[in-house]
């Protein structure tokens, strides 16, 4: 699927011209995550630009797919998915991992998040994935409800341990992966 038109927005595959918008959306995603959970990582200066550059460079990667939701000329949300191959450990082969999902607060409750997930879901199926996995902040009750309504069930808990006698990062934070966010 490349495009799905609805009344107020359309879902399409991201393009290089979306770079600035993706950087801005990601920065907002990080900001909301830190409001929810102060232990979430503090992005470095210009992190949004770095992130967007990385996403744009991945547009030709066959294991990555980025969809954006566009309303008129504005990008109001995006979803980043990646194919993971875990066949070296478990039967079942490929799985789809939703790295990031974000929709502007003003565009929520209009089905945009669900439409972005549906686009990724269709792509994952086309790529032979048997399941989707994603992370949702343990403090994000609304995000959990969103994903559970889409069929998500608890699978694993990602935990963190601070080592004693070690200086913490200046922001007191750090996690290894981007996070899915309530759309």
């Amino acid at each position, binding site marked *: 699927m490349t495009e799905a038109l609805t009344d107020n927005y359309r879902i399409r595959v991201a393009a290089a011209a979306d770079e600035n918008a993706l950087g801005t959306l990601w920065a907002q995603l990080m900001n909301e995550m830190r409001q929810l959970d102060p232990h979430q990582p*503090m992005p470095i200066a210009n992190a949004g630009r770095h992130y967007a550059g990385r996403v744009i460079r991945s547009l030709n990667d066959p294991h990555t797919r980025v969809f954006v939701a566009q309303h008129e000329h504005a990008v109001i949300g995006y979803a980043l998915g990646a194919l993971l191959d875990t066949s070296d450990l478990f039967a079942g082969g490929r799985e789809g991992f939703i790295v990031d999902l974000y929709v502007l607060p003003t565009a929520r409750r209009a089905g945009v998040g669900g439409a972005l997930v549906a686009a990724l879901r269709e792509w994952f199926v086309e790529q032979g994935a048997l399941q989707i996995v994603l992370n949702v902040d343990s403090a994000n009750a609304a995000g959990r409800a969103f994903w559970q309504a889409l069929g998500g069930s608890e699978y694993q808990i990602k935990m963190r341990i601070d080592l004693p006698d070690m200086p913490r990062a200046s922001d007191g934070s750090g996690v290894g992966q981007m996070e899915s966010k309530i759309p």
Partner: protein
Amino acid sequence: MRDSELHIRSALAADADGLLPIWQETVETMTRLDSRYRIAANGAERWRASFVAGLSDPDRHTALILRGDKPIGYMVGTVQANAPGLLPEMIGVIVELSVDSHGQGGGVGTQLFATLSDWFKTRGVSHIELRVPSRNPIAQAFWRALGATSLYDQLWIKLRD
């Protein structure tokens, strides 16, 4: 050395065969608790190859615990780059923990973790991340007792069989 005495050392390639049944028991427990985990047909072979290859990785450490001369568990940790743009730049990750079911509950896992923690500190790591199955409350309790707190819940959506 007395048969009941516990000691820890870095794992060697020669330990792989002795640890294989412990790995097997651990993953079978995982699949019993949650059928979404499925062991690959040649999973044991792949685990062995991965275990041995990992021993020569300078960013990976495998601690082995023995009772007398018998291996009863191991823990694998790696130092990994954090996601681009996020601090701290490097984090520790516990990749595997397996303890013989007969050896559980006697502080074996805690001793392995203490060893890995010391190694992580030598690498300048300030915090560690790990994943625990949602349907394994015993494993969750073990890690929480060591100070672990939840960061994310990982959810799973079935696409097809």
